[in-house]
């Protein structure tokens, strides 16, 4: 009977601690860090081709996943939030891989080849990758 009570007590304490930790994390954590996560490597041309072929299938493969996209820099601009936006060339002259950079000091030049790692958020003409960092 006594051991039985002890087990319950331990379980209750463990659950409370886990819950407390989760609650603590919910109030204190920052945004997710993608730069040190494992990524799906894909080149810019086939990433857009996959989406043009079937958005649903491509979403199963890439949506909400960390991807490392390799491609030629088409353009470097700044968005309204002051973040660097790098577009990568695809086989489609109108549409690109649209990468918003997390990294502020990234040295990226038009026409060079880069690999950018970030979260794939989906497709709307361009394929969008956010929170990007340069993979060396």
């Amino acid at each position: 009977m006594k051991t039985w009570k002890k087990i319950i007590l331990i379980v209750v304490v463990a659950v409370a601690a886990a819950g407390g930790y989760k609650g603590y994390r919910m109030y204190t954590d920052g945004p997710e860090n993608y730069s040190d996560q494992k990524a799906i490597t894909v080149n810019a041309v086939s990433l857009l081709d996959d989406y043009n072929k079937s958005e649903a299938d491509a979403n199963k493969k890439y949506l909400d996943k960390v991807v490392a996209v390799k491609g030629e820099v088409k353009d470097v601009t700044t968005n309204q939030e002051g973040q660097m936006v790098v577009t990568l060339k695809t086989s489609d002259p109108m549409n690109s891989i649209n990468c918003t950079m997390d990294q502020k000091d990234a040295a990226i030049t038009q026409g060079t080849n880069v690999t950018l790692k970030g979260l794939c958020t989906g497709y709307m003409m361009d394929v969008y990758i956010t929170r990007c960092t340069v993979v060396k």
Partner: protein
Amino acid sequence: MKKILLSVFVTLGITTANAQSVFFTKNGLVSFFSSTPLENIDAKNSAVASKINSQTGDVEFQMLIKGFEFKKASMQQHFNDKDYMDSDNYPKSTFKGKITDLSKVNFKKDGTYAITVEGDLTIHGVTKKVSTGGTITVTGEKVNSKATFTVVLKDYNVSVPSFVSKKVAESVEVKVDCDYQFYKG
């Protein structure tokens, strides 16, 4: 021969006219804010696709739900959850409508013009007719659109689970702020 040339010129003329009337962005800004007794929640999406046709008044917005960024990973995760925005099944939110008082806007003259936009707003797979006030600002070849409106979550079948209802408001204030470029084809 003359006919062919004429038709070529006419076609080119039409294409140019159409191209000149469209302003677009692929990286516009939409943010939302909600305050609750416990904390304020705000998120930003700086990869919003939008276009405005200055001749017809047609306005379109498209955004990826997973493109909303929060200050905390747990909030972002909750927002995308199956029991909230369910962004795996509904990855986009769209607005398709018209500027109803387009004649108020002079796209060739710098200035800020108050407008009304009406159309279909789709969130979480549910489409509703909405109408909101906003502004169009013309600065040379650049155009900016701004609007602020309230979205009531239950209108779009977004349910707030009772155990988090203190943390998640029942309506959110949405802000649109998009810088457009002239569409050069």
